[in-house]
């Protein structure tokens, strides 16, 4: 089951995001050059007075065991997955906009909460 995630959404100029120091233990998903979705607690200091920092609950996600995840992705993902770990990747999976986090222990699968039920139907 995908669970609704609670994090921060940060839109700021790319240099500010490149230079930002993220809280220990947080996960930083760089959605675009000027766009971060941050999972984790703590203060973020950004060198951009016009940055947008908002509570973000619009994504849902779940952790998958790597072998099972890769098995599923092999039948649903038309692009090449990253080889290194950890890695973030995003694109169409099972026809939906999906964001993926890969590390040694898990594949974390995220999508918009509004499409979470649809993605679940398309998962093994």
């Amino acid at each position: 089951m995908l669970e609704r995630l609670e994090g921060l959404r940060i839109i700021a100029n790319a240099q500010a995001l490149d230079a930002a120091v993220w809280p220990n233990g947080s996960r930083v998903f760089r959605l675009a050059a000027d766009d971060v979705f941050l999972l984790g607690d703590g203060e973020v200091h950004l060198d951009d007075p016009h940055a947008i920092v908002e509570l973000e609950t619009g994504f849902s996600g779940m952790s998958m065991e790597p072998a099972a995840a890769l098995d599923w992705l092999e039948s649903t993902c038309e692009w090449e997955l990253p080889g290194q770990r950890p890695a973030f990747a995003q694109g169409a999976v099972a026809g939906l906009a999906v964001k993926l986090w890969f590390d040694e222990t898990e594949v974390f699968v995220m999508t918009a909460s509004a499409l979470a039920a649809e993605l679940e139907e398309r998962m093994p």
Partner: protein
Amino acid sequence: MAAFTFDGSSVPFDSGDSVLLALRKAGTIPGGTLCFAGDCPHCVATVDGVSYVRMCQVSCRDGMTVEPHPVGGAPPLPDGTTAHTAPLQIRHCDLVVIGQGESGSAAAAEAIARGRRVITLDSKQGADAIGIYAGLTVLARSQYGLERIHCDDVVVATGAAEIQPVCTGSDLSGIYTARAAEYLLAHGVDLGTVVAVGDPPPGHASVSGQLVRFEGEGRVAAVVTRDWDGTEHTHPCDTAIVGLGLHPRDALFRMARDLGVTVVGDAAIDATIPPPPQAGTICPCANVTADDVKNVWDRGFHEMELMKRATLAGTGTCQGMACLPHLRSLLADLGGTVQPPFTARPVTKQITFGEISAGAHLRAYPRTALDGEHRRLGAEMDRIGGWWRPWTYGDTEGEYWAVRNGVSIGDVSTLGKMIVTGPDSAELLERLYPTRIAGIKPGRSKYVLILDERGYVLDDGLVCRDGEYEWFLTFTSSGATFAEMWVRDWAESWELDVRILNRTMSLGAINVTGPHAKELLERVGLSDPPSYMGHASAQIAGIDCRVFRLSFTGELSFELHHAIADSVELWRALLDAGADLDLRPHGIDALLKLRLEKGHILVGQDSDFDSTPRRLHHEWAVDLSKEFFVGKAATIRTNKAPLNKQLVGLTMDGPAPHEGAVIWSDGDYNGYVTSSTWSPVTEQSVLLGWLHLRNGELPTEATIEERRAIVSPVPFYDPDGGRARA
């Protein structure tokens, strides 16, 4: 012994036999020169409910059902009840090599040695390439199911097919190509008395002379050849073997030639042009004879493609594998030049709908965070504006009256929502919108149209100001993705320093509407509601909300925007708090009625492709004194043309005509109804519709569904807006 059913009879088989081999062993064999290589169309049958399957390419399975196709007819449409599915595998590599004969194996080995990632496909190992597509992408059907392979290069090494004989009697059974005969002998099949023509398989000698015809009743009984001096010789036989040469199996290459695909080995040989056929069936799939081709030629169809279309030769199951060499030969004989082969298009090996659609999905419709709540309340859900939304909770009229007389809540989470900040944010919005933005004070909102560069209305929404550099924008539900593309595109093209965040799927929104809305919200903590067209942050039932005061229904309304994580809690808190106020939710059906009484347009329903603000009576939302906005030049330009039609309000006695009904004036078409409903509160039908001007004037009345309609001012209800501002 294991057996399958063929045409109602049981046929035994040895493990590993193809269906065709088992049939040959049992003495039941279709007519035509069989190739046992998947090239010719003679052995197609319906196998386990799937027609047009080549029996030489299917291994026998115990209990399988094989039906021959009807003679001279087509198999019936299946009923789709079989459960054939194919899992999908998506693979990536540098190089795909199709065909693993000598040249294919060598190409693969060479690439592997150079460190390239190589995937090989070979139909002998059950992996059929279906097509080569841009990308590059190779589609194949294998033991794993459907394979979609994304790669940089493809080598086609599919070998060559044997040329079929075309002459009288070539459709008899008992005729084999040289390779097929070799294959049958290797499998211990007794061919009886054999007569071979052309290049025979090893161990057989050919009779001399040119092949003239085959003789026999159903089964070949003799081969007739002709000497150089014209003398015919009849060679009695049980089996005829023909070795007429090769032509390349290069359809995969020809369909992808310009994609940089390479072809090697026999697939790259020059096609043999056989002697022009004098009689017999050239195209066995479509049953086209040499005489047919000559007849059509004689009437002016000289182009290969015209010939193909006029006879249907080459358009059947084998896609020209059997007929193409003979067609080219015959057309060259008739016209003096050898024409290029007709086009090759995917698919090369046939594939079922079930197989090809493995892994395909229907369009996804997002759901709001309140989707479960709506369903629990018994809502009839519908796809609206790209989302699943509650059409009605079962009592549209009751929902309507709850808004007009009491209080009601509606899920408007689907609204497009966007935050824009940055030093140039005001400049961006000033250029984007056709109305003045700079004058909006923090805490205030303004209704805005969005115009395209043609001056047509694309969308509408609100601009809300939070601070000097902070803005919140709304768009229609169906317009959110477009709006994001549009705003980002312009911001980039003007090189403005802004930050943009689409909040559509992150924020929920609940509309609290009705005369008792304020009372309800007081109970859940809103002590200081914003004034009309204002907005403020507040805690509602303990939840952080941004409260917008506006009105689409015409009643006192507040829109509560909040993180979607809180939607359910907020929704339930409102329902609880309003229980004694007869609070009930309203669906889209009721909402459309309510807004229509107020004359609010729905962009996309009431507006059309060519809807300028002038045609929509929305000139008030456009300020032409602004220096610039998107669509300004077009508005000035189109305003020079005489006005031809406008969106107007209409009222009628009696039930509402249906939306889309034609509007007549003096017996002539004069427009159509865009929105229509019975208005309970005004006790008449109220409509919006397009009306054409006559001599520069709008008619004052019209006929709709044979009843009289009066052109009426909008809003139809509460024209001075006192209720919304209450």
